[in-house]
């Protein structure tokens, strides 16, 4: 890397001047934390006493048998406190915020997972907390909003722009430029201006480090392929980090194919020809944008993948060929979810189920002495409102209608 914060031509820190000093401090604090072994130790201690790390690596014996090919293992980030890998990043940033002496955190959230994780971290560390969430998402993800509020966070519905995740990010930046003295912006994924992609990846690399070790201990060898869904790219970068130097381990990122990569309604930046390089939200990467550089609307059944940009590190790793990308459609995702629940008693988040789709496509053509690891980035019970709709469950609908009646009474 020639320039710091760049991954090939991607990355950078396209910052309004007002934030430059804040980022100088932030970069410095991060660099000093990264160089300080006691910081990582504190992080490990926190994650093993407050969340449930190391998370298990589960051998999915039934799925393996079902597909009759590679041995399928599942890395269980769903067992983290707050139910997803988001906790890793957020707790790490919490420690950094403490180190920087700031007292307030802000964050964007789409599905609400990162918002809940941040609000949780803020409660634990005693920080003030404001969460920006597109108005559309506030309406869709009320359960998460409810918990954020219980956790003491102020949830601000963003009514600007398309009122979804990217607009929440913009609003969070607008808050930050006002309050940077007291406030740290806890970005939820491996995107945004440098050093966010590097830092989020660093905290999430705990997934990959554990997985590598667990594979060697349990299977006696490294996996042949590792699958992860890609929204912003944090869970994927997290697990991939453990294997980047292991040339024989194939790394596969799976994006949101929505109604199909040809439909125009998807969120596939690296697995479709629809995205192009641009600069927004402070960094350079592939964006789903029009010819003028205006960001397009994206679609996915999984709110957490429904984002226009993608980690600059992944853009680079696609270019170097180190990571292969594919997309999974909404329909495939619901099917993979159904199968995984029935066969293994695991309920992956809709986001995570994207990784399962591609793994299921490839497993049958592999041999039983090959090993696949899928990153189950989160648990799906948070998705009940979406999943119930995807299944069109009439009993669920009746339950909601009756509940509404109760409230009308």
């Amino acid at each position, binding site marked *: 890397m020639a320039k710091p914060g760049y991954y090939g031509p991607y990355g*950078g*820190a*396209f*910052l*309004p*001047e*007002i*934030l*430059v*000093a*804040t980022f100088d401090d932030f970069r410095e604090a991060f660099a000093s934390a990264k160089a300080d072994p006691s910081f990582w130790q504190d992080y490990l201690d926190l994650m093993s006493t407050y969340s449930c790390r190391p998370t298990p690596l589960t051998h999915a014996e039934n799925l393996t048998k079902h597909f009759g090919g590679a041995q399928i293992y599942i890395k269980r980030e769903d067992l983290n406190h707050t139910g997803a890998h988001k906790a890793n990043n957020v707790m790490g940033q919490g420690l950094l915020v403490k180190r920087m002496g700031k007292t307030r955190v802000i964050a964007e959230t789409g599905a609400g997972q990162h918002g809940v994780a941040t609000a949780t971290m803020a409660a634990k560390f005693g920080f003030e907390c404001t969460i920006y969430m597109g108005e559309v998402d506030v309406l869709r993800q009320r359960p998460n909003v409810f918990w954020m509020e219980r956790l003491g966070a102020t949830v601000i519905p963003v009514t*600007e*722009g398309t009122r979804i995740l*990217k607009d929440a990010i*913009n609003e969070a*930046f*607008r808050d930050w*430029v*006002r*309050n*940077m003295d007291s406030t740290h912006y806890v970005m939820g994924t491996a995107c945004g201006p440098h050093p966010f992609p590097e830092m989020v990846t660093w905290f999430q690399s705990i997934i990959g480090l554990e997985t590598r070790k667990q594979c060697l201990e349990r299977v006696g060898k490294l996996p042949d392929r590792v699958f992860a869904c890609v929204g912003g790219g944090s869970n994927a970068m997290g697990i991939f980090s453990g294997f980047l130097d292991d040339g024989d381990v194939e790394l596969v990122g799976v994006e949101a194919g929505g109604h199909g990569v040809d439909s125009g309604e998807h969120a596939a930046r690296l697995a479709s020809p629809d995205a*192009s*390089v*641009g*600069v*927004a*939200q*402070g960094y350079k990467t592939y*964006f789903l*944008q029009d*010819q*003028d*550089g*205006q*960001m397009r609307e994206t679609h996915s059944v999984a709110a957490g993948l429904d984002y226009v940009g993608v980690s600059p590190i992944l853009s680079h790793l696609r270019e170097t060929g180190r990571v292969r990308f594919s997309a999974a459609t909404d329909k495939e995702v619901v099917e993979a979810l159904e199968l995984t629940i029935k066969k293994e008693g695991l309920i992956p988040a809709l986001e995570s189920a994207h990784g399962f789709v591609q793994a299921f496509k490839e497993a049958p053509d592999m041999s039983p002495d090959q090993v696949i690891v899928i990153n189950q980035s989160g648990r799906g019970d948070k998705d009940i409102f979406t999943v119930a709709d995807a299944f069109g469950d009439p009993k669920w609908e009746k339950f909601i209608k009756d509940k509404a009646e109760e409230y009308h009474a």
Partner: protein
Amino acid sequence: MLDHYIRAKRAEKDILLMTHIVLGYPTMDKSLQIVRAMVEAGVDLMELQIPFSEPIADGPVILAANQRSLEQGATVAECMEQAKQAVSGHTIPFLFMSYYNILYKYGLDRFAADAGDAGITGTIVPDVPPEEGEEYLQAMDTRNLSPIFIYAPTTSDERMRYIAQYARGFVYCVARKGVTGEATAFSRELDEYLARCRAATDLPLALGFGVKNQADVDFLKGKVDIAVIGSETIRVIDEQGVGAVGDYIRGLAA
């Protein structure tokens, strides 16, 4: 060059006025009308914002104007065309303001070429710090456009001097933390900050973010060369219509 124009104009006036509009807001036609009204009312420089879907440094007023303009289908090509019309027949300098992605996607060289052809004098792109601006600076330089850089209260003296090396035309001093369109306290603290800006560069200084009325403009006299009125003109338009802009501007410069 832009700084010569500013210095020459300053010989006549205590302070210059730069106003801002969003191209395509409320409509393309009306934004041209507003430009005309502003020039007639005596502004000395004009900022034409090409709307962007993610205007991260803008507050709600300009943000909403960006969105409205895009919803009505504004394209960059059209903005370029409108800018040409806006410039023609007026003698003051016009600047493009936008975010980096607009220039980047258009092609930096092509953007600079077309902007130059349209008679544009310089560009304000708040999300390109000099560190990220190599290509941008080169493209602007080739076409003799002034890349306007920004100082903020959080910018250190050292960094101000660093930025000054890349700045052309003038330096845009942001009055305070936050985004456009919020209130600014025109205070002693601001004085000190502006003194730091002044010490860091020989270029003229503009001050923006929160300049609203004659008192604000008066406060700035002798401290900066240009007072920038941004969100407030959009507010005037939103509340009193396009016709009110001329009077509003004349009131500031009185």
